[in-house]
């Protein structure tokens, strides 16, 4: 740090106007409206919009109606993936503030779908392998029939 900078200046911290959250955080309703708009995105893959759909359906199960789609403040030509990432990151803060405790996990489950959507867009093959492993763990019959069991009388089950 050069001498002409004020004492205590930390170059890793942006100036206050540029610090997040410089603008007020969008409400959950606004984020949901943007997600409904992203559901029809032509920039995101079918799998990614599928996970966005899962997230909105999870909210619908919790009693929140399917929101009316609304374009993000950055406009319809912005990077849709970046919008999705920002909404997903904001959910972390919402989880910390959510009450009662079960609401945190409701948001956690919704957020998991959104995180999968982000990762699916970035690395579809890698995510599919991960999810396939989880499917086989939860439903072992997908990996094929179990090995035959030899009974005491010599019979095979």
């Amino acid at each position, binding site marked *: 740090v050069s001498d002409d900078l004020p004492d205590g200046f930390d170059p890793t911290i942006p100036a206050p106007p540029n610090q997040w959250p410089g603008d007020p955080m969008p409400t959950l309703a606004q984020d949901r409206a943007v997600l409904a708009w992203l559901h029809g995105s032509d920039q995101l893959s079918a799998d990614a919009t599928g996970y966005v759909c899962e997230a909105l*359906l999870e909210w619908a199960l919790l009693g929140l109606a399917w929101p009316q789609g609304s374009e993000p403040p950055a406009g319809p030509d912005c990077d849709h993936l970046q919008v999705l990432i920002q909404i997903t990151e904001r959910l972390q803060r919402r989880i910390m503030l959510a*009450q*009662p405790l079960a609401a945190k996990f409701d948001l956690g489950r919704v957020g998991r779908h959104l995180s999968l959507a982000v990762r699916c867009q970035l690395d579809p093959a890698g995510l599919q392998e991960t999810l396939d*492993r*989880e499917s086989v*763990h939860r439903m072992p019959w997908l990996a094929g029939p179990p090995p035959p069991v030899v009974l005491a009388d010599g019979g095979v089950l």
Partner: protein
Amino acid sequence: VTGWGEGLDELAGATAALLQAGPVAEPMVDVRAAMACRDAVLTQVRELVGSVSDVPRLAVGSELTVFDLVHRPGQALHQALAELPRAVPFGTRQHTAALDKTLPVLEQHWQVAARAATGLERYITAAGQLPDQHAWYVLRDLADIAAALPALDHALSEALLPGLPTGQDLATPYAMLTHPGHDAVRLAAGEIQARVPADGPRPAAATANAQVLAGAPAVAGELSRMMFGYVQGVSALGGKLSVGDMRAVTRLLECGGADAARVLARTAPTVAGAADLAEGLRQVSPLASQLRTTPTRSISTEHLRLLRDSRELQARMRALAVQALRLPPDAADRQLRRLAPPALAFAEHIPMLTRALELSVRESLAQGLLLVPSLADHRNTHHLMWVTDTMRPGCDGPPAVQRSASELARAAEQIGPPVRTANHDLARHAATGDPSTRAAKTARRQVGKARAELRTALTARLDQPPALSASLTSHPRLAPAPNVSNVRY
């Protein structure tokens, strides 16, 4: 209890944040420390559940029974958690109370969770003395945390995978984190979540029970009925088709069709017509993608049932594809042939589905409920307006969305003949099968029927109002003694 509330809130916040993150692609900096934190969370939640449910701390574990799950859910959850092994052996690695800010955010969440869990240790005795009006609700909070543990274990096991080929010492913790005991935890926690409402007004949410069965591959008859109902649903929409509905149907055609093509390609050596059918499905997939990304707007609202059914069918086709991919290369013909009927049941409805979609698109456009861009070049969004089809300037032919839908329907018609060939081939094999094969087929049909009944029962249960179940005792500790003569889980 302020300290209790803060500690539990911190623990829940950290575990929910980990749940949200899901399995991450980047390897962890110190995965063993994260595993030690996971063990601390698991142990503490288990002890608290045991304390609320009055389980002796040195009780001898027994097998979990259906009776336990229904009549002793607190004790059952404790038992299920006790069957989950530690990821790292006791005493080999301990988590630290200090938060290491240099670690990635996820590992910090693990540290926060472990620290909060350890802080709840002082409430273990108090948790055993809770009055009736609070005990079940505290247990519900703990069940929420416990229900997240299987997903967190899966994420940790994925973090271990990159080190497995070289560091074989990770194989043991990997086996611990992918332990089959997770299903019991899901079931026991789901039982409490279904019967004890969370604080505040919340409608019933999908429980872990429903999720366990969500992606199960359906038998052919069941899948065919589902697809038939789905096609009827799309057809009934008519002019009320929304953009969200259209996206859901095209997504099913794109992803579900690709999965069905994978399955049929695998079965091609044993089923005549399967290869042609797989090729036909592969041609449908890009056209569905094209329709999905065609710019449109709609005035109608989305139909949630259609969206849900689309995801359900897609999950089933994915499960079938996983099953096909996991078959060994030298799988017997009989095994390969067994995969074909569900894929065929899905594929045979695709021509009807695409035709129904096309008709709905036409009707929506005619009614002015589906809007199209006012300009031919929709990428120039500065002066773009969404108009009805009749208001489109310089009308030269149908709008892009209708053209795409028609093209998709025409391509889907091509898969009709190979579907008939494959069905005929399968029927010929079924007719010439030996008695044991026919008996196995009948047994599978019965199993499918039983599974459908179970799913109906679980769905009906989800619709019940979220009130404290009348069959629960006034306090978890008053649960009846275990009934050892019942059916084992």
